[in-house]
């Protein structure tokens, strides 16, 4: 089987290890991976901030980059949800408003071929035990767009539970948003920080060494809060118990094996 990796702009620029982990994991499972070089960003930041027109060229670019690929796999629930849920809507609106001919068809063609990583593993490949080894205590935060947008359900937790050596502890209030929300994090920094500090406090209280997620943008927010000691001076946030967990993308855990160890 052959898949195209949609690594996403955040992972390309800031978290290449996650992309490398996906390649290593899929190849270990016997899947050939392509990286179409025309891909950049799905346009979610523009769209969610209210700049739908700016999203249209990125929709076209993304659809063209992955034309002809039967399976497109991406390690981000929110980018997958952007393409699956919102691209068809953006395409329809653009055509009705007389801009971007063919955008609706391009969106409709791409949307069903895009799979978030855990969906692809569990539903398409039919595996939950990917042969990984990760001897640590892990708690999992399900990011909102994967959880409620795509309906990933317990797929990520089933994959984690099958990892040898891994002890999975439940995160209290797991389904509550971490407060990232794209540009929300800077437009409403006080509420965003309050939500994020509550989330990391819950994670730390589990005693887990690793706070795992499947969306690096949410993890960038949580990691940023965890590494800043003087969180929001003057605000009554719950203190974070130490030692605090470190954040890690699910793909990097699934890519680690006993023979090869974690990613270099």
């Amino acid at each position: 089987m052959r898949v195209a990796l949609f690594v996403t702009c955040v992972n390309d620029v800031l978290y290449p290890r996650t992309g490398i982990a996906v390649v290593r994991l899929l190849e270990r499972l016997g899947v050939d991976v392509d990286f179409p070089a025309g891909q950049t960003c799905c346009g979610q930041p523009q769209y969610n901030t209210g700049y739908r027109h700016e999203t249209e060229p990125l929709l076209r670019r993304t659809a063209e980059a992955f034309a002809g690929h039967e399976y497109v796999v991406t390690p981000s629930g929110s980018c997958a949800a952007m393409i699956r849920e919102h691209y068809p809507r953006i395409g329809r609106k653009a055509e009705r408003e007389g801009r971007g001919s063919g955008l609706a068809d391009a969106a409709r063609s791409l949307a069903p071929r895009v799979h978030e990583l855990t969906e692809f593993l569990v539903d398409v490949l039919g595996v939950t035990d990917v042969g990984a080894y990760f001897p640590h205590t892990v708690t999992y935060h399900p990011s909102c767009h994967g959880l409620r947008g795509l309906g990933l359900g317990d797929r990520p937790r089933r994959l984690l539970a099958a990892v040898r050596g891994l002890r999975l502890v439940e995160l209290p209030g797991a389904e509550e948003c971490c407060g990232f929300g794209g540009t929300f994090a800077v437009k409403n920094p006080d509420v965003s920080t309050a939500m994020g500090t509550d989330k990391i406090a819950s994670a730390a209280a589990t005693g887990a060494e690793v706070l795992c997620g499947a969306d690096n943008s949410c993890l960038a927010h949580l990691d940023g809060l965890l590494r800043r000691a003087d969180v929001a001076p003057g605000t009554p946030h719950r203190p974070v118990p130490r030692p605090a967990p470190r954040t890690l993308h699910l793909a990097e855990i699934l890519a680690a094996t006993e023979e090869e160890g974690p990613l270099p």
Partner: protein
Amino acid sequence: MTGGTYLGMPAFPVAAREAVRDGVLRANLRRATHTIRDRRARAVAELADWDRLRAAGAAVKDHTLRHLDRYLLQLEEAVNAAGGTVHWAVDADEANRIVTEIVRATGEREVVKVKSMATQEIGLNEALEAAGIAAYETDLAELIVQLGHDRPSHILVPAIHRNRAEIRDIFRAEMGRWGRPAPDPLGDDPRELAEAARLHLREKFLHAKVAVSGANFMVAETGTMVVFESEGNGRMCLTLPETLISVVGIEKVVPTFRDLEIFLQTLPRSSTAERMNPYTTMWTGLGPSRGADGDGPSAFHLVLLDNGRTDTLADETGRQALRCIRCSACLNVCPVYERAGGHAYGSVYPGPIGAVLSPQLRGTDSDIDASLPFASTLCGACYEVCPVAIDIPEILVHLRERVAQGGPATRDGIRVRIRPAHGHAAERAAMRAARLLLDRPGALRAGERLLARARRLAPRRLPGPGRAWTDTRELPPVPAESFRDWWTRERGTGR
């Protein structure tokens, strides 16, 4: 007893900052919303056909809204036939004028009120006060808000931001100024507080000749009004006074009596987590019971309120907000509401539904209304619990577009083009620049390499708008090599 006003409210992020830093408020809200949230989840899980009830509720509302003109005329006819009088109010001023004139004509200087969002929306209490008429709220939480010279912060539990010690202090200080004083001594036990309110309000019920209410539903085929409440105060107001005035948004109509079957199940479970609503009062005009014994009011006035609803109905994406049955489930699950509190939304409609209703009913011109569509992480918890399946995140993004990019809207029945908001010029330029870069993979790669080379110079604190990130968060470390470059080095150019 003037309530606060929403004029000149600061934008949401500014108002929310105060609430986030108020530890007592944070604790009150967290305790209250989590309790209701968990109870609602259990109550909804009991029904095997919840998803179908939800879809049916949405379908009934959509059908009614599509044929609203027809159903409103049918309703008017039915209410008139049952001895009521129907008034049409295009906006808040007209509705307030109509109600004030009706009360004046009775010669009364006091009215008792059933909890009503529509009368809060139009500022009726303030308008009546200006005309020398005192309006007494009789819902326990509304009474707390009114006595505390406060504003409601939740649709269903307007005093959710108050704890019982604060409520005791308000009762002790204020009750005596408006009627029967609070018992002395008064503790903060909920039973004691409820008894104080009961004694205070009983006098009002027995004296009042005029009552003002809203309605949760209006049945077009029969002209029946329906009020859901939990305390029995509504039943008192709706039956004891001689004149009853109901101010109701035009979107509250349903076609038939049978349609109530759906909402009688979904509304109580979604709002108070109850299987059955405690007090459901229904009346049809003056009704057959209005006989020789003089039961019930002898005059009934229905004021049908538009106040931006027809304009909202004209918007294909935004109109689904008019399905709302004011259950508050979206407030109780919203992580932003939980931290920001209801007052930050600058409207009687707080929380996720407020963030999509207020900028539609009032327009997006003011700072607060232009900021509300951005007061969400788009986490989708609100959509998930909504008993009439309003896709709130979809409307939020749609309204963000209206603010940031501009677009068509309807104002006072006229199709207009909204110009992009001034405050968004720099952001617009940044979004465009980002898009231009991202539309050129070569330029993106060059940018990534530049970033990698300068990675050791990365600052801990960013200037300008970036400060909002780095004030509380570290920036992600910049890797030595982008994924794109790793792939090229390891695998060649790809494809």
